[in-house]
């Protein structure tokens, strides 16, 4: 990193941390709205003002330095809330949903495979963790199993999805999502509508339900989950970033934009779509397993159609395929409805109205992705 980059990075952390912290922690509606406006404005500035965009893009070449920045910022926010259960729970929830949204980004942001059953795969991960609670298996393996089982469950849909496209494919995933929730509700072995208990996360013999104590301070145990979710999110983002800049990412772009042209170029489009769908569901499943462990409890109504819509709304508002847009989008979608207590009963109404209006006036989301532009390179003679 160059010196200017270090300065810019510090400025970003110094501004970003208090804003995010305020949004997550505040109970005051005016402060909350102010915080959200600042967040959206900052995110739009970073993605739309050419100089700022160039500056952030230059942080560590392909943006790997940005991940260190995110890590530093995330840890700072989490630590600053140290003892506050509710705020840390909220922060961890935001990070887990952002992780799940990364899976969807891989699916329809990169590969163009629409998935309206995000919450179902999230639920498969969660229920895997619940069923494995009784087994003497390390928690990290349970997380991995959540991902694997979710990916395998998605394999049921691969054939019909590959055979069709567009609205037809959307229907297949919608049908799967509803099928999954109905199934959970009537299946007594999985707890029926009452749901199941889940064991807490355990790492190297140490349960996450134990709180970290530093000196006389007693940390909330949600701090553990927030930090783990942050770590997983960053790993997923680095992974996606690397996919995106590799030949795989390039061919995924082609498959999404024009399948016919892609196959004319010899790209095995089915293989690319299968890969995106599999890996994406895997990421969503891991997120679901972690969420279940954090909540200690899961029930079918956590994994309905509305929750799938929430995930899709995150990905679309974040600008399809824009990794960085997902974070502000998740904060808006997860925190705002939770916090607008003053509007009480009306908050779902207000929330959906806001989404409708955003989509109506900015059809490609709040933070549209910058596409690869080769003509730009050509002009510069590269």
């Amino acid at each position, binding site marked *: 990193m160059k010196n200017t980059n270090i300065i810019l990075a510090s400025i970003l952390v110094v501004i970003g941390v208090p804003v995010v912290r305020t949004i997550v922690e505040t109970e005051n509606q005016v402060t909350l709205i102010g915080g959200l406006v600042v967040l959206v404005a900052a995110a739009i500035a970073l993605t739309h003002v050419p100089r700022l965009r160039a500056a952030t893009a230059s942080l560590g070449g392909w943006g790997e330095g940005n991940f260190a920045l995110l890590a530093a910022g995330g840890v700072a926010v989490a630590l600053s809330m140290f003892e506050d259960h509710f705020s840390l729970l909220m922060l961890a929830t935001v990070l887990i949903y952002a992780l799940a949204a990364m899976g969807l980004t891989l699916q*329809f942001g990169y590969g163009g495979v*629409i998935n309206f059953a995000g919450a179902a795969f999230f639920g498969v991960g969660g229920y895997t963790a619940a069923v494995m609670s009784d087994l003497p298996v390390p928690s990290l393996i349970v997380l991995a199993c959540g991902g694997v089982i979710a990916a395998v469950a998605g394999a*049921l*849909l691969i*054939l*019909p999805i590959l*055979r*069709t496209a*567009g*609205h*037809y494919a*959307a*229907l*297949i995933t*919608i*049908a*799967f999502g*509803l*099928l999954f929730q*109905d*199934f959970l*509700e*009537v299946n007594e072995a999985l707890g029926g509508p009452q749901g199941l208990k889940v064991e807490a996360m355990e790492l190297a013999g140490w349960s996450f339900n134990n709180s970290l104590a530093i000196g006389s301070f007693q940390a909330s145990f949600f701090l553990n989950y927030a930090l783990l979710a942050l770590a997983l999110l960053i790993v997923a983002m680095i992974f996606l970033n690397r996919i995106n800049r590799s030949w795989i990412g390039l061919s995924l772009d082609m498959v999404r934009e024009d399948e*016919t042209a892609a*196959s004319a170029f010899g790209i095995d489009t089915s293989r690319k779509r299968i890969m995106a769908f599999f890996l994406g569901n895997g990421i969503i499943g891991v997120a679901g397993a972690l969420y279940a462990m954090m909540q200690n409890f899961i029930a079918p109504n956590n994994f309905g*159609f*509305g929750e799938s*819509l929430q995930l*899709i*709304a995150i990905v*679309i508002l974040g600008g*399809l395929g824009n990794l960085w847009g997902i974070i502000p989008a998740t904060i808006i979608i997860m925190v705002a409805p939770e916090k607008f207590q003053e509007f009480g*009963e*009306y908050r*779902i*109404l207000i929330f*959906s*109205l806001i*989404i*409708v209006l955003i*989509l*109506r006036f900015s*059809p*490609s*989301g709040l933070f549209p992705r910058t596409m690869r532009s080769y003509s730009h390179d050509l002009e510069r003679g590269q």
Partner: protein
Amino acid sequence: MVIFVEYAFSGLMLGIMYSLVAVGFTLFFGVLNVINFSHGDVLAVGSFSALIAYVGLQAVGLDLPILCFIAVALAAFVVTGLLGAAIGGGFVVPMRNAPPINVLLMTMMIGTVLREVIRLGYPNGSNPKAFPALLPDTAIEVGSVFIRLDSVILLGLGLAVVALLDQFIRRTKFGLAIRAVAQDGETAQIIGIDFKQTILLTFAIGSGLAGLAGVMHGVYYREVNFSVGLLLGVIGFSAAIIGGLGRIWGAVLGGFVFAALQTLWVILFPDLSGYRDVFAFAMVIVVMTIWPTGMMAEMRSERV
């Protein structure tokens, strides 16, 4: 056998309701190539506006059941028709060049808005509401089977409405305009068809049909619920797609196929009737695997 006939008849009732919803989806897709997912909730708005109209008629003192039914159904048709035209004109038409997924998400969110407006706006709206018996419900005996008269009327009415719509689209000038826009919107504009007006009319008709389905749903089950639209919307969408998007009779076929699947499951496995929807949606996935663009395939295919 008696039980079987009764199940079959209730399956037909479900089928006609699904068909009416599916026809709307297919009309919208035909003219604009978009999916309007708020359609199921428009149906719920239809049920509730019928309920309000009924309360209004009671207040005026009109108490003749059949007349009341006609007035109430007309009210639901008009309200949902206007609502549909507003959704189409205000939100769907401006979005027609956006990625399809964004339109899908937006209309789903409009559906949520409608659902919430009913829940919060109607007195005590989050609880199921009793719907008046507007049609004579004497039981008719056919052989040893008893069938409620009002269901027979509803079934006949539903089929008549679809047949009427079919004739409307085949034989009238408006129908010709709708077909022209569906074929090629730009050319239709060039030869002087009012594009916007045609689209709004289509949205009004399709949504009005959902409104009628909402009234039928209320009369048949004697109960309406604000959240009924989500499931009915997905089922209607499935039915439209099973039948092949963009074909009216395909949508009707899809509606009856979906209802038949559910009914068949209940007849075959009465103990596992809770899995009725699970089975029906699993079959949707299977149907899509066998016929990727529906049982009555789309005319044009981009597949290579």
